[in-house]
């Protein structure tokens, strides 16, 4: 019982820590603070916390949780490669208004006025891929092992959230990028389908079972009823 509660708490902390990174870019574009400031005050601590949870879960032999976090990171990273192939193709074909990872990089290093360089590009791509890994952890911990379409639906929700958030509207393309062209929404949705498919495929292929957060809560309530 105590062991299950500990796992649930750690899973909750992992969810919170992983959820921070993708929201920072949105918060910055909404004008709450500069991304460079948020990166130091929230992004770096959230990465430390997430890796800390992974370490504790490993030491405390909570293998299923450690596996969920680790596989979420790897699956999210792989999913982002798929997302990037679609996004970059969309950009080349005129479906996207700009190179978002490069934009993230100049905002992260607070050098928008000077434009991108190799270091800001590295930072931007790193942040972009970490966001993918963070979403991988969120979906892995939240829904565990599930059918492929479940990951795709969640990934599409992320894409829709992106398109109605300041992350999109701050680009001057309107909600869903409708003021830009139809290619924007198509690119974003297809890119997130690719992300969901790859993440889901990876989690299903590499894991026997990964409990969802609901299953973890249910386990505790059942154990509580039996004791």
């Amino acid at each position, binding site marked *: 019982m105590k062991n299950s509660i500990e796992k649930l708490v750690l899973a909750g902390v992992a969810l919170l820590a992983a959820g921070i990174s993708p929201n920072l870019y949105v918060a910055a574009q909404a004008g709450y603070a500069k991304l460079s400031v948020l990166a130091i005050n929230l992004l770096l601590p959230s990465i430390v916390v997430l890796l800390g949870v992974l370490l504790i879960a490993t030491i405390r032999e909570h293998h299923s949780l450690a596996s969920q976090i680790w596989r979420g990171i790897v699956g999210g990273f792989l999913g982002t490669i798929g997302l990037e192939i679609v996004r970059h193709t969309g*950009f080349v074909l005129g479906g996207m*208004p*700009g190179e978002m990872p*490069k*934009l993230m990089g100049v905002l992260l290093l607070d050098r*928008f*006025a*000077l*434009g*991108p360089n190799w270091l800001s590009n590295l930072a931007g791509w790193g942040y972009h891929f970490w966001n993918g890994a963070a979403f991988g952890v969120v979906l892995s911990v939240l829904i565990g092992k599930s059918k492929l379409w479940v990951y795709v639906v969640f990934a599409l929700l992320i894409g829709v959230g992106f398109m109605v958030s300041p992350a999109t509207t701050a680009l001057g393309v309107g909600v869903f990028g409708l003021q830009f062209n139809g290619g924007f929404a198509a690119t974003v949705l297809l890119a997130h389908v690719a992300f969901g498919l790859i993440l889901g495929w990876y989690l299903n292929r590499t894991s026997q079972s990964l409990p969802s957060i609901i299953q973890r809560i249910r386990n505790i309530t059942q154990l509580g009823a039996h004791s």
Partner: protein
Amino acid sequence: MEHIQRSFTILIILMLGTLGIGNTVHAQNSGLVTVRSGQEYDQTVESLRQMVSKNDMMVMSEINQGKILSMTGLHLKATSLFIGNPTIGNKLFSADRGVGVAVPVRVNIYEAKDGHTYVSYVKPSQQLAPFSNEQITKIGQQLDQNLNNLTAMLAK
């Protein structure tokens, strides 16, 4: 009739002459001054920085418009330098706190489609004119002169 045509032709030639066929491309009533540089883009930016310094001013900030736009897939060479100095700033802001809309002065350097590099700015006197303040007007005219000197050196 022939006399009228000849007079008209002379008038056109005189008008073209006053517009200038030199390196100053535009200097209309809008206050926009555009000067063709005698150097390549990168050299022009570098030279301007050095000349700003030699003329008792400094580059307070800059925007690399070309690099920023490269993120949208548009590739061009364009930089805006914001130039001024603390003494001028002190005098202007002492006269009117609202002058920040016009200073530091923005100078734009860009490579046009014709392959030439141009330096352009809106005359500070024009930007400062709405303040209707004698001291500000005087400084604006002085800044016009400074910028004219700077860009004239680039045009050589």
